[in-house]
């Protein structure tokens, strides 16, 4: 089933000693040319796949952890296509109530929905109901008795679009975090978006630093500083976040290169520097 064996080995339990007793946050930072979608998809796979070597340590060997995926950057079809490439049938896990997709992309600025279906859509006009909508999705996923993994993609676009301020987003996340076991947030970290005196840049910096302080681990994706390469898409670094993980253990820091395959045969290869 898996086309990502190397990747799974990289994220084995030793890298992320997570606790089951309280909610924890993981931050994924990315640049424009190195999107973080693939790593979020990996977290989905690891959370629902119930296999050894998932990022949740040995706890997940006993139980699968459902996923609530909130995206402001892509629609469900985009992720379904990527999962198909990686050999995961999204429809099967949606039917099994292992995966709930909250779409904040398709109808964000659409006043009236074109057709109604069972999907959860977030609309900017109904901002006040978002907390309720996502919380209901979390409770639905929690019906099996296991707190879900909550994944946010492109949450920082909300303050760029003027829908929420960075502080409101952080409070929003803190509220939802209480109901889930693990929260994973992707954010852009390009210097061009952080430098300067504009309100937008200051908000993005405050948002990013704030998340880095709350996270137990930070996965930073960046392009190679030496330019484009045919066999390496970018570099990934795993570091400790500002939130102490536990008394005994600490995130196993490391740096890797990765390669995203293109087309239908595409997969992801993660490898130590120079060990392609």
């Amino acid at each position: 089933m898996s086309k990502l064996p190397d990747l799974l080995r990289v994220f084995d339990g030793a890298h992320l000693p997570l606790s089951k007793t309280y909610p924890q946050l993981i931050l994924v930072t990315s640049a424009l040319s190195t999107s973080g979608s693939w790593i979020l998809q990996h977290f989905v796979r690891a959370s629902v796949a119930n296999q050894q070597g998932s990022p949740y340590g040995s706890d997940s060997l006993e139980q699968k952890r459902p996923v609530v995926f909130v995206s402001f950057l892509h629609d469900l079809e985009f992720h379904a296509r990527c999962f198909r490439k990686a050999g995961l049938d999204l429809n099967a896990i949606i039917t099994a109530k292992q995966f709930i997709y909250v779409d904040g992309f398709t109808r964000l600025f659409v006043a009236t929905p074109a057709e109604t279906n069972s999907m959860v859509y977030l609309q900017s006009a109904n901002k006040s109901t978002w907390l309720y909508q996502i919380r209901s999705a979390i409770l639905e996923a929690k019906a099996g008795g296991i707190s879900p993994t909550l994944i946010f993609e492109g949450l920082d676009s909300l303050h760029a679009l003027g829908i929420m301020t960075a502080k409101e987003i952080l409070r929003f996340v803190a509220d939802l975090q209480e109901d889930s076991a693990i929260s994973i947030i992707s954010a852009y970290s390009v210097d061009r978006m952080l430098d300067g005196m504009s309100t937008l840049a200051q908000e993005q910096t405050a948002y990013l630093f704030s998340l880095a302080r709350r996270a137990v681990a930070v996965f930073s994706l960046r392009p190679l500083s030496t330019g484009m390469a045919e066999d390496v898409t970018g570099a990934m670094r795993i570091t400790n976040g500002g939130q102490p993980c536990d008394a005994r253990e600490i995130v196993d820091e490391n740096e890797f290169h990765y390669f995203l395959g293109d087309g239908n045969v595409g997969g992801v290869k993660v490898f130590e520097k120079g060990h392609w």
Partner: protein
Amino acid sequence: MQHTSILLNRLLTVKDVSPLVLLQDTPRQTAKYLLLEFIHRNAEVPGVQVIFLSFETPSGSLDWIGCTNLRYIGCNRLSHEAIHDKVNCLLPGDQKSLILVDSLADIPAVDLVSFITPLIRPSSTLVAISHLPLSEHSSQPTPSYAPSATTQLLYLATTIIKVLPMPEVKIDEVDEACGTFLLPLGSNSRQSRLEFLHRRKSGRAVQGSFRFDFATHTLAFIQQSTTADESSGSTEVNHALLKNLTTFNLGTTEKQRVARDKVELPFLKAQEADVAGAAVGGAIVYEFEKEDDYDEEDPYEDPF
């Protein structure tokens, strides 16, 4: 040196009360481990109430320390008045206590002082983390002659501890070139360097650097060898500058310098501390010499 290290240990165990201890950290090295050290050192001390005001620490994440005196207050949805009320309820009298704030970053710059001052109490130590850099707190307020929120905090604080990465985290040039915000490897580890500054009631400031390890709960004083090197370097420079300036010899020889360092200055005695860490300063020490004209009579004696 020994004195400074005793002082920091006494602050950590709340034996000495410092009304406001400000911890300054950066995204590269968190001050949370030092905050946890405060809890750890007071976990089994009877009579010390520990209150944790949380803005970014999830509930349940402090349970492993096993501190029975700890009370957790989640402050995300509470108004400042409500937080003050809760603290007052938990601390009705003037009991010995430790109030910890995990982040001042979420408090608007204009409300910062009004949030902190009601939490300062005579027998309690308030420990708060101020995250740097924070543009909202460091920018100038609208009457531009007023100090920024970060500066105001520095005036208010009685103890300031800067938390820096240890060992020194190398900033890779490749990292700099990649054009993204990137934490260096080795960030936010359990070992850190503390730049400690304590203002005593007398107004005298005590400072020092420490190596702090949360894994072993140890503090080690760092000798300021770099400053000594710098000062000797500067005397050499001075010497070279003075060389052909006049016909007089303005420099000092090595022998003269050693002799000068040995001179005991009178005020140094007042700064020495006894073993328990209590300063004996303030007393005027005068030893009589042979030729002193010592008057037995008390000049203030009642003549009748």
